[in-house]
């Protein structure tokens, strides 16, 4: 070993790093792909690569504690007679009872309701607890149709037709047998303890022409009262958004590749779909081309963590954002007080992603009654409300700094990019230049 402590024998390969080597060894041992939860962990161009310009001589800011900066959003104005009125532009993404414990679902409902926003069911139907604790509840129609019934359809405040999700565009659902408790099994009309594989395509429609008829049926069943969203994983975003609009959606839910999941193949999470940063401008362009931007609302998700992320998403043209992983972290996922328990199952606080395993020490991604009891839904709901409140305050801070009296007045002109990649994807200039790669020099 050299005097400075460097040893050539300890040089780590950039190609075969320790994660890669461990995965090859695991694959050779088990003969099966790795299944995990959470979202993409690789570094991709993201909102961190954008900056707000703020106000100065050429435009004036708003006073922080005196001048209003509104945050409300109305979703579903295109066709529904009862659109959603949300007080904040941050909603809770679809997560199932089954993937999550009943306590976690209740906590999400409590936190969202305190802040005047919506929660969303998942692949497993609607539980009475969830309906009771969520003032505004979006009911998902998924390929599996687990638990789907017309009473809940009419009981919901909006309907979300799920075509795909960011973690796995083109993939179906997966809930491994050890999370199928008797109650989960009953809701899904399956025997307890068996792997539940949700189909990747809907059973009674294929393609946009059928989807249009399907949406019309849902409207007929609910007497045209409920807003109908269409959720897509970000991939061929321009065309997917256009086809969803053509099919009659009131709102588009667009989930980037960083969006979380309860369980899917690692190879899917890390290698399919595009970052939300790249997808939003495509979606907005599609809506603008159809003359329906702000008429068909755009809700975006996938890696939203801070008020800065919210503000940047809105500035790029979204009407609202949706959070999943961040909401679970607010409830207590990956909390330091569970570190010892995480280490017992081969992880650590800050790293845990085995939502599929049902062993969650925080009691969130589990159906084990003992573990689930660790999450107090009232406390969890309060933490989520605190977190949402912080996101809103941060978003307002940035909007006021840009001189906006409503967060929806943020616009691409308020943004610059730190990297060429982000400039090209977000279609805003590289900082200090007027250059938008792929669009023109601006000169």
């Amino acid at each position, binding site marked *: 070993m050299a005097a400075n402590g460097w040893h050539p024998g300890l040089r780590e390969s950039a190609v075969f790093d320790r994660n890669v080597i461990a995965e090859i060894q695991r694959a050779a041992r088990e003969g099966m792909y790795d299944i995990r939860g959470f979202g993409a962990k690789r570094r991709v161009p993201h909102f961190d690569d954008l900056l707000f310009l703020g106000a100065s001589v050429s435009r004036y800011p708003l006073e922080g504690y005196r001048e209003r900066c509104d945050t409300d959003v109305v979703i579903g104005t295109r066709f529904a007679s009862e659109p959603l009125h949300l007080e904040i532009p941050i909603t809770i993404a679809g997560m199932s009872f089954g993937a999550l414990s009943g306590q976690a679902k209740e906590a999400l409902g409590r936190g969202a309701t305190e802040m005047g926003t919506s929660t969303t069911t998942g692949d497993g139907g609607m539980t009475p607890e969830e309906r009771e604790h969520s003032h505004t509840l979006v009911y998902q129609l998924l390929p599996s149709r687990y638990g789907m019934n017309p009473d809940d359809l009419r009981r919901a405040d909006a309907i979300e037709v799920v075509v795909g999700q960011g973690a796995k565009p083109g993939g179906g659902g997966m809930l491994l047998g050890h999370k199928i408790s008797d109650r989960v099994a009953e809701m899904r009309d399956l025997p307890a303890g068996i*792997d539940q594989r949700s189909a990747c395509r809907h059973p009674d429609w294929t393609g946009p022409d059928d989807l249009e008829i399907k949406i019309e049926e849902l409207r007929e069943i609910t007497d045209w009262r409920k807003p109908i969203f269409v959720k897509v994983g970000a991939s061929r975003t321009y065309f997917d958004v256009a086809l969803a609009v053509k099919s009659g959606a009131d709102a588009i839910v667009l989930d980037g590749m960083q969006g979380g999941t309860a369980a899917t193949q690692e190879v899917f999470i890390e290698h399919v779909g595009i970052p939300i940063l790249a997808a939003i401008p495509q979606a907005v362009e599609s809506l603008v081309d159809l003359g329906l931007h702000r008429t068909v609302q755009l809700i975006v998700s996938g890696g939203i963590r801070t008020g800065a992320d919210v503000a940047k998403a809105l500035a790029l043209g979204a009407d609202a954002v949706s959070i999943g992983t961040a909401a679970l972290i607010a409830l207590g996922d990956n909390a330091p007080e569970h570190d010892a328990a995480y280490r017992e199952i081969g992880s650590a606080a800050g790293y845990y992603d085995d939502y599929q395993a049902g062993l969650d020490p925080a009691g969130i991604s589990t159906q084990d009654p003992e573990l689930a009891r660790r999450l107090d839904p009232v406390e969890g709901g309060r933490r989520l409300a605190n977190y949402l409140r912080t996101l809103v305050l941060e978003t307002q801070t940035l909007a006021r700094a840009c001189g906006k009296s409503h967060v929806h007045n943020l616009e691409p002109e308020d943004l610059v990019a730190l990297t060429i990649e982000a400039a090209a994807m977000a279609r805003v200039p590289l900082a200090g230049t007027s250059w938008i790669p792929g669009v023109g020099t601006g000169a």
Partner: protein
Amino acid sequence: MAATDAIREAVSVDLATVTVRALNQRLHDASAPGSFRVLNPGGQHSIAAGLDAAHAVEIDGHVGYYCAGMNQHATVRIAGNCGVGVAENMMSGTVVVEGSASQSAAATARGGLLIVHGDASARCAISLKGADVVVRGSVGHMSAFMAQRGNLVVCGDAGDALGDSLYEARLYVRGSVAALGADCVEKEMLPEHIAQVRELLERSDIAGVLPEDFRRYGSARRLYNFHVDNLGSY
């Protein structure tokens, strides 16, 4: 009261002059069970979708997609053929198709009875979750794909990949099966199964078909929990 008298007293709604929206709203608003006759359906979609009362609805002609979708309690009779997804996600009640049905008949249906007197196309009873489906003719490929619970009775033949990735639904076929799907196997017809087929045929008003002539198919349950040796079947 005989069935013909009921029809005579039914409220007639002519879809040549009234929209499907108006028809469905009327059916949804009528809380007391009533009899309705729908004229000139003209292949329109979502006719009688989302019913939630014990209405008797007679449709005089062909219908499009999702007729009687998510039906609860009502009896809907279609005097013609129907498009994709008839009685999809039905919860209860009875839907009768006097002609043939297109794809995904009774998809994900959780209760009630669908009777098709003609043939049913591909994906009949796909992802079935508890309903009974009786087809007087034959069914197309991928029928009962991922079917979880309930019964499919086919008096004719079944197409390719019957019961692929099947869970606990029971499949009865009188004629030939082009091929069984992954994890679907033939099982013994026990007296309880013969009795079940007999009962379903009787409820479907299908005469001249012997329950003893049917063969039963169900899940081998080999794919219920992932195992690397079954990789070729996934």
